[in-house]
């Protein structure tokens, strides 16, 4: 009999994994994500190749030479009448400043041969703002004002450390943890919802097109249900594992290739606690993000927990979805009944933002021991290095409640699959569980 469950599992699994849509989403999603992350940097590179030659007509004579050449634009001062601009060759654009631009910075015009770019416009306005500000300061002639301002300029940055149980210092950043926590929670939310519904839909279809009547002659209802849940669960695990593999692989191979050795050195220095942040070429958040993205051990750890909570949460929710699927005859009826699954799922997901803001609060603790919200809430908290004991407690409760839920669902399923012609209520489901 044991091998029969294996036959059911392998059918459920292979039918789904072999689908083109599954293969595409599984491989394309993480690649798309990585591309999106790298896109700004890549685009920057593309833009650098097209430096705009800008001719500047500056009656004040104070501004043009202070415009700094950059990968966006090269500035050349032109001493000509604006009316004869059309004779000047070799320029992409002309910037024309009014004579009183320092006193009244309006009426500045940019003539461009191609469509002007936002990047160029913002670079020019930014530069002009700075230059004019400087000019005005100097015009006030307040002696050392410039150095005073330099002196009082504030650009604080907070580097947070966390003391772990043995009082060692651990790098930690709430912002990065927050982002990772919310992403994990969202991933779980979508996985539980998507794959849970997949179990329900598949049971409803099997029941409504009466294949079930044939299967049930050789396999016990409980085994059919478990086979289905496990089969679909394996699909979910496969998808997550492929994602983890691609992301961790990218972190090990791609990341060292993309970031410059200078930044890599800074990341290492930060890890050792020897980095002087005032000299760093990136802000702390950026360095910490890179540090985490490059920390393979950390990534494996996060995916490991994610996998454990995915499996536990999936089994719990899939059991409920299975019970509902067995009771109804079409997916629409099922959608109505699933409201009471969605509520805890949504609470768990949306509580994540609150929990991420204060991961060690009482609310966070209680939501992580309630099995229905535990997967999402706990995955939000794990990046904050909460005590492992709490994680294990949460997992233990989750897995224990999945066993109870499967047992209950099995009882409902056994009755439900032979019930036709009547739309059941939640009351009916409870009654069937008592048979």
């Amino acid at each position, binding site marked *: 009999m044991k091998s029969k469950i294996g036959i*059911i599992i392998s*059918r459920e699994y292979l*039918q789904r994994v072999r689908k083109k849509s599954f293969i595409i989403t599984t491989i394309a999603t993480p690649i798309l994500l990585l591309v999106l992350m790298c896109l700004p940097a890549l685009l920057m590179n593309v833009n650098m190749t097209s430096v705009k030659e800008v001719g500047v007509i500056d009656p004040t004579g104070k501004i043009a030479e202070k415009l700094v050449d950059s990968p966006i634009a090269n500035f050349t001062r032109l001493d000509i009448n604006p009316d004869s601009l059309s004779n000047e060759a070799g320029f992409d654009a002309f910037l024309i400043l009014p004579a009183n631009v320092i006193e009244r910075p309006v009426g500045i015009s940019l003539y461009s041969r191609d469509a002007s770019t936002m990047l160029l416009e913002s670079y020019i306005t930014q530069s002009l703002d700075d230059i004019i500000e400087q000019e005005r300061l100097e015009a006030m002639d307040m002696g050392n004002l410039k150095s005073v301002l330099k002196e009082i300029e504030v650009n604080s940055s907070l580097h947070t450390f966390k003391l772990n149980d043995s009082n060692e210092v651990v790098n930690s950043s709430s912002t990065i943890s927050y982002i990772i926590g919310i992403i994990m929670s969202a991933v779980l939310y979508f996985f539980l919802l998507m794959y849970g519904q997949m179990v329900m839909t598949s049971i409803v279809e099997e029941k409504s*097109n009466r294949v079930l*009547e*044939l299967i049930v*002659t050789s396999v016990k209802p409980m085994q059919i249900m478990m086979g289905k849940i496990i089969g679909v669960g394996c699909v979910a695990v496969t998808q997550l594992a492929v994602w983890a593999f691609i992301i961790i692989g990218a972190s090990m191979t791609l990341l060292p290739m993309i970031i410059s050795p200078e930044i890599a050195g800074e990341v290492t220095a930060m890890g050792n606690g020897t980095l002087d942040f005032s000299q760093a070429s990136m802000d702390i958040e950026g360095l910490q993000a890179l540090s985490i993205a490059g920390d393979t051990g950390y990534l494996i750890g996060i995916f490991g927990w994610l996998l454990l909570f995915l499996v536990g949460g999936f089994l719990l929710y899939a059991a409920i979805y299975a019970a509902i699927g067995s009771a109804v005859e079409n997916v629409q009826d099922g959608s109505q009944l699933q409201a009471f699954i969605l509520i805890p799922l949504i609470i768990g997901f949306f509580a994540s933002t609150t929990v991420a803001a204060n991961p060690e609060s009482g609310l966070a603790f209680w939501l992580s021991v309630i099995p229905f919200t535990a997967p999402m809430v706990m995955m939000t908290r794990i990046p904050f290095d909460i005590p492992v004991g709490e994680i294990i407690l949460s997992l233990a409760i989750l897995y224990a409640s999945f066993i109870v839920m499967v047992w209950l669902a099995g009882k409902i399923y056994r009755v439900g699959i032979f019930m036709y012609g009547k739309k059941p209520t939640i009351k009916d489901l409870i*009654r069937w569980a008592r048979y």
Partner: protein
Amino acid sequence: MDNILEVYHVSKHFSSKTALDDVSLNVPRGSVYGLLGPNGAGKTTLIRIINYITAPDSGKIIFDGHELTADDVASIGYLPEERGLYKKMKVGEQAIFFARLKGMTKRDAEQSLHQWFEKFEISDWWNKKVEELSKGMAQKVQFIVTVLHRPKLLIFDEPFSGFDPINANLLKNEIMELHKQGSTVIFSTHNMASVDALCDEITLINDSRNILSGNVAEIRRREWGNRYSIQFSGDAGEVMRRSAPLTDRFDLLPAETDGLHTAVIVPAAGGAIRPVIQEINSCSDILSIQPVMPTMEDIFISTVNTYNAKHNINVEQ
């Protein structure tokens, strides 16, 4: 007699209704057995118990000499009344899936499936998806899946509903072929006419109980009621008058052709048919005489009606 299946005092209750009430029956090995009864009588519940899908509340099932276990489903082939296939799955792959659930190895299943597919001339369906097949085509596949593992006991629930006459006949022949090869066959149906000529033994289930069980020939003889149909030519009035003292019933059917009459007669209580024949023969020419055997359908209807009247059951529908 050697029975492949024995059902002893099986009862099954659902929350508000009784599906089976102390049902016992024996299915002789090698027989074609009819499990008859109106819709909702409890036939499907009984079949589900035999297939180990649901457990009875009380009673026991003996299959092939031992108490029924879960492993026995490998020796039973069951074609449910309501059946379907996975629409998106390929025919061959799907057939192998079902065969493996019945305990066959993949290789055996494949080999034996190819034989059946050739026999039914449907080999080119192997790689088609089920949704591309017509309903009748899908039913052929289901039939193959049901019998593929060469079960000792075959159970067909309303097997011929949904088949066109040609395919129904093909199916009937295949079933009888399997029967000839040694399988015991149970037909479960409310449509007695469809299996009348096939069954050796029957059980009639009504209102969750076994109300009539036994050999078809015996039951028909018992339910026969001593009726004869006699065909003669001559003066019908004279024949009727002269045989009246010897018969309990003399129903003259409307004449078909000139001078040729048919009558259904029942000899007087305890009386034999011979004196009646002699009397009729003395005043007319007898062309034929034969007992009027009731069809199983007649017996089915009259037994159920009698039972329902006795137990004050109002049949809905």
